C-alpha cells in the first residue's frame, strides 16, 4: 500500500472501469481518498462491492499500481473492522462454502435475490426461470 | 580439459626464439643469473624459460625463513671458514673447494642485494644481520620469490612462463639452446641461445614420500614436488657429465607433516630427543660432534633410534616460552605456513609437547649436497655452451638460498664471457621435428589410449626406488642386489614410456616429468652402485659395505652416451685447497 502515493490521478482506471458508472464513484477517487488518508470513507465506498474484479484498472495503470488488490484489501478491512457488512450475495456465497464446501448456483441465486429484492419475488422468479432455461444456472 | 585442439602433429605450432642467453628455470639462481647478465650487459637478450609462473615458482614458492649461509666477518668468519664448515658437514668431503670458495667470495654481496631489493632481513642490536646459529640469518622471506622475479624482469629479462624444458638443442657437441613444451598454449618452443644456463632446481619425487600412503596427499615433501630433476635429465640425455648423484639429500622433518626441523633445532636450539627423553645427539654422538655433527648424521641418528627401539623421536620444544613459540611459528609461516596449520589442526601447543620428527624421502639437490652437473670454475658443464647453477650444479654443497643466488651470478658471468665469441647456427629442422614428435606423442595418443598414465608410472618408480634404492621405508639402507634389481626395473619402465598417454597439456607435462625422473633415477642408481662403501650414513648407507673405503675418497662421475644410451661411471680426484682437518669445521 506504500505505493499509493505513486498514483498521478490520470483517471485511466476509472475510464476503463465497467461498473464505476453504477456506483457513482471511481477507482481513481478511492485511491485519492487513500492518498488523503480518508481510509474509512474509502472502505465504505459502494464501488468496492460493485467491482467485478475484471482487472481493467490494474492493467491500464501507468504507474503499475495493483488497483484491484487495493480494492479487495479495502473490502476485507471494512469487514474485519465491522464497519461494513458484505452484500447478501457475498455473505451467502461464503456461508455455503463454509457449510458444505460447495456452491449450488440456484440456491445462491434464490437466497440472494430474496435478500436483495424481497418485495419483487415474482420478477426475480421469472428472471431465474429464463436463466435456468438457457443453462446459465445449474 | 585443455589440449588446444591438438589431434595431429600438424596442429602443433613451433615457436622459434633467438636469444643471447637462455636461462632454464626462473627460480633463485635463474633470477639472479638473469639480473647479473642484464646489468653486466644490458644490450644482451636474456630469456628465461619458466615451467610455472615466475613470481611463485619452484622451491621458494611458499617463502623462506632464513638464508642459511652468510659470512659474518665481524665474527671472524671468512670464505675459507665457510669451506671448512661445508667440508665437515660432508664428513670431510669430497667437495669442490674451488667452487665453494668462488661462491663464498660473492655470497655476502648477493645477500645484501636481496635486502636492497626489498627482502626484510632481521638485524641485531648492533645493526648486523641477526644470526641463528653460526651461518644462518633470519629473514622475513614470504615475498622472497616475487622480489627476485620482479628484479629479473625489471632488469629486462624476457620471461616465458609455463614453458617446460624437454631437451637441449644441440649443434654437434655444443649446446645452442633448448626445447620447451608450452603447457598453456600447446606449442613447441625452440629457444636458440648462444649460451644456456640450467637452473631448474633439483629432483624431488624420485622416491616415495613417507606421508603419501596415509594422507592421499602425494606431495607432502620437503623439496618442491614440481622440481622433478628435468634440469639433470636434459643434460644426462645430451651426454653431460654428472657428479656425486649418490650423495643424496635426506632431511630430518617433522613426522606426518613434512615440516622444517632446522628452524626449531638450529633457530631455537630445540634438541632432538628419543622416546625415553634422552638427548640423541649429545648422549650418543658426542664423539662425532654432538649437536654440531654433520647433517647426514643428524638425520641418521634419530632414524637409528627408531631401528634400535627408542622411538618415537622428537625435537624438544617444551622449553620454549609462549613468545618464542609465537616467534617460531612466525618463522614457519614464512617458509611452510601449512605446518603451522597442521599443528593447530591437531591442537598441538609446542610449548607443552615436543614435535615428533622423522626422516624425509631422499632428494637429489645440488644446492644442498654435491649432486649435479660437473662444472668448471665458470660453471660451464662438460657440454660447451651449457652452464649450470644452483641445485643443478654439482660439487659445491650447502649453497642454499644465498649460495644458489650467487652461483646464478657466477654462471651468468661465465656465460657472458663464453657467448661473446660464438654465433648461432640455423635452426636444425630435423632435430625440431624429432623433438616435436617425441614431446607430443603421448598427447596424440589421446585420452582413450589403452596405456599407462603418468601417475601410475610415477608411483611405480617411487615405490621401486623407495624399497630397492634406499628410501625412507628402508631407513635409507641399500645393497648391491637391490640396486641392480632397481636398475633392471628402471630400464623396463623406460621402455614402457612409449605407452604413456596424456589427455590434456597438464597431463603431458606430468608425462614428461616422469620421463625426466626416470633419466635421473637410472644414472643415480649407477652412482649408488659404484660407491661401494658407506660414506654418508643415512644419505648413502650401503649395508653390504658399511665402512668408509679410503680408495673412494674421490668424486664419482657418470656420463650417458647420447647415442648408445650406455652409462659410463668413472671417478675424479678430490683436491684440497683450504688447509686443515677435513672433518673439522
Amino acid at each position, binding site marked *: 500500500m506504500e505505493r499509493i502515493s505513486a498514483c498521478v490521478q490520470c483517471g485511466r482506471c476509472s475510464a476503463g472501469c465497467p461498473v464505476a458508472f453504477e456506483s457513482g464513484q471511481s477507482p481513481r477517487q478511492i485511491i485519492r481518498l487513500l492518498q488523503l488518508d480518508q481510509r474509512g470513507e474509502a472502505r465504505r465506498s459502494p464501488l468496492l462491492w460493485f467491482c467485478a474484479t475484471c482487472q481493467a484498472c490494474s492493467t491500464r495503470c501507468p504507474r503499475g499500481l495493483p488497483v484491484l488488490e487495493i480494492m479487495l484489501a479495502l473490502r476485507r478491512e471494512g469487514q474485519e473492522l465491522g464497519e461494513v457488512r458484505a452484500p447478501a450475495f457475498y455473505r451467502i456465497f461464503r456461508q455455503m462454502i463454509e457449510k458444505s464446501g460447495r456452491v449450488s448456483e440456484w440456491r445462491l441465486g434464490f437466497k440472494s435475490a430474496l435478500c436483495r429484492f424481497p418485495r419483487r419475488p415474482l420478477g426475480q422468479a421469472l428472471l431465474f426461470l429464463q436463466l435456468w432455461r438457457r443453462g446459465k444456472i445449474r | 580439459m*585443455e589440449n588446444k585442439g591438438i589431434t595431429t602433429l600438424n596442429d602443433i605450432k613451433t615457436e622459434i626464439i633467438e636469444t643471447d642467453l637462455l636461462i632454464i628455470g626462473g627460480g633463485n639462481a635463474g633470477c639472479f643469473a638473469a639480473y647479473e647478465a642484464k646489468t653486466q650487459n644490458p644490450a644482451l637478450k636474456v630469456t628465461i624459460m619458466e*615451467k*610455472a*609462473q615466475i*613470481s*611463485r*615458482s*619452484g622451491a621458494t*614458492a*611458499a*617463502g623462506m625463513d632464513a638464508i642459511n649461509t652468510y659470512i659474518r666477518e665481524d665474527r671472524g668468519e671468512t670464505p675459507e671458514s665457510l669451506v671448512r664448515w661445508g667440508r665437515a658437514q660432508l664428513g670431510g668431503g669430497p667437495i669442490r673447494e674451488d667452487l665453494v670458495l668462488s661462491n663464498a667470495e660473492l655470497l655476502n654481496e648477493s645477500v645484501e642485494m636481496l635486502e636492497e631489493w*626489498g*627482502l*626484510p*632481513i*632481521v*638485524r641485531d642490536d648492533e645493526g648486523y644481520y641477526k644470526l641463528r646459529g653460526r651461518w644462518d640469518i633470519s629473514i*622475513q*622471506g*614470504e*615475498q622472497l620469490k616475487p*622480489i627476485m622475479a620482479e628484479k629479473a624482469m625489471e632488469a629486462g629479462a624476457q620471461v616465458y612462463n*609455463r614453458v617446460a624444458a624437454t631437451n637441449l638443442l644441440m649443434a654437434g657437441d655444443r649446446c645452442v639452446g633448448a626445447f620447451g613444451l608450452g*603447457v*598453456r598454449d600447446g606449442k613447441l618452443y625452440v629457444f636458440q641461445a648462444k649460451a644456456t644456463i640450467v637452473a631448474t632446481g633439483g629432483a624431488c619425487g624420485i622416491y616415495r614420500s613417507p*606421508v603419501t600412503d*596415509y*594422507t*592421499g*596427499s*602425494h*606431495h*607432502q*615433501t620437503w623439496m*618442491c*614436488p*614440481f622440481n622433478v630433476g628435468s634440469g639433470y635429465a636434459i643434460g644426462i640425455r645430451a651426454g653431460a657429465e654428472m657428479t656425486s648423484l649418490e650423495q643424496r639429500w635426506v632431511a630430518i622433518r617433522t613426522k*606426518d*607433516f613434512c615440516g622444517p626441523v632446522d628452524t626449531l633445532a638450529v633457530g631455537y636450539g630445540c634438541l632432538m630427543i628419543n622416546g625415553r627423553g634422552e638427548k640423541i645427539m649429545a648422549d650418543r654422538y658426542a664423539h662425532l660432534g654432538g649437536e654440531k655433527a654433520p647433517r647426514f648424521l643428524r638425520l641418521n641418528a634419530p632414524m637409528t633410534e627408531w631401528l634400535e627401539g627408542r622411538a618415537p623421536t622428537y625435537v624438544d620444544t617444551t622449553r620454549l616460552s609462549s613468545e618464542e613459540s*609465537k616467534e617460531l*611459528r*612466525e618463522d614457519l*609461516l*614464512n617458509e*611452510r*605456513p*601449512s605446518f*603451522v*596449520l*597442521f*599443528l*593447530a*589442526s*591437531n*591442537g598441538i601447543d609446542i610449548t607443552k609437547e615436543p614435535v615428533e620428527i622423522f626422516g624425509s624421502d631422499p632428494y637429489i639437490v645440488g644446492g644442498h649436497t654435491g649432486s649435479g652437473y660437473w662444472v668448471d670454475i665458470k660453471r660451464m658443464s662438460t657440454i660447451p655452451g651449457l652452464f649450470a647453477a644452483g641445485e643443478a650444479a654439482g660439487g659445491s654443497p650447502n649453497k642454499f638460498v644465498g649460495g644458489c643466488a650467487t652461483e646464478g651470478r657466477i654462471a651468468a658471468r661465465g656465460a657472458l664471457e663464453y657467448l661473446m665469441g660464438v654465433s648461432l647456427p640455423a635452426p636444425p629442422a630435423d632435430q625440431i621435428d624429432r623433438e616435436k614428435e617425441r614431446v607430443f606423442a603421448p598427447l596424440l595418443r589421446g585420452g582413450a589410449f589403452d596405456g599407462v598414465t603418468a601417475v601410475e608410472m610415477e608411483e611405480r618408480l617411487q615405490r621401486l626406488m623407495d624399497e630397492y634404492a634406499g628410501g625412507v621405508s628402508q631407513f635409507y639402507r641399500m645393497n648391491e642386489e637391490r640396486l641392480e634389481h632397481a636398475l633392471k626395473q628402471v630400464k623396463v619402465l623406460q621402455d614402457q614410456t612409449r605407452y604413456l598417454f596424456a589427455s590434456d597439456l*597438464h597431463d603431458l*607435462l606430468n608425462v614428461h616429468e616422469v620421463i625426466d625422473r626416470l633419466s635421473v633415477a637410472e644414472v643415480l642408481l649407477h652412482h649408488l652402485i659404484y660407491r661401494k662403501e658407506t660414506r654418508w650414513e643415512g644419505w648413502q648407507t650401503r649395508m653390504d659395505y658399511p665402512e668408509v673405503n679410503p680408495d673412494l675418497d674421490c668424486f664419482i662421475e657418470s656420463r650417458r652416451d647420447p647415442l648408445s644410451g650406455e652409462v659410463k661411471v668413472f671417478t675424479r680426484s678430490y683436491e684440497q685447497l683450504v688447509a686443515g682437518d677435513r672433518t673439522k669445521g
Partner: protein
Amino acid sequence: MPPKVDREKCDGCKAENEPLCEQICPGDLFTLGEDKKARCRMPRDCWDCMSCVKICPKGALETRVPYQIGYHQAKLIPLMGTNSITWTLIDLNGKVERFHYINRGSLD
C-alpha cells in the same frame, strides 16, 4: 593438501583467460571449471605453498590439512597488505592466534 574453493565467493576472475590461482600455481594445478569457477584438477599434487590463497582477491581459497593427519576445522588465513602480511590461525578448538609481520622493505 587440497586448496578448497569457495564457489560462492570465487568469480573465476571473471573468466578472463586464466584465473589468478591458475596463473600462480607452481604445480599448474588450477584450471577454470565448466562453471567458470576455479577448480583444482589434482588436489593430491598440491604442495600447500598457499600462493593461490594469498593471491585470490575474493578470499575464495583455503588450504586444508588432510583429515587423515589434521582435525576439522582448523584454518589459516593470510591477508596481504602492501608490505606486510597477517595470518589468522584458528585451531580445532576455535582458539584464534594472529601473526603480523613485514614481508617487504625495511623492518623499521
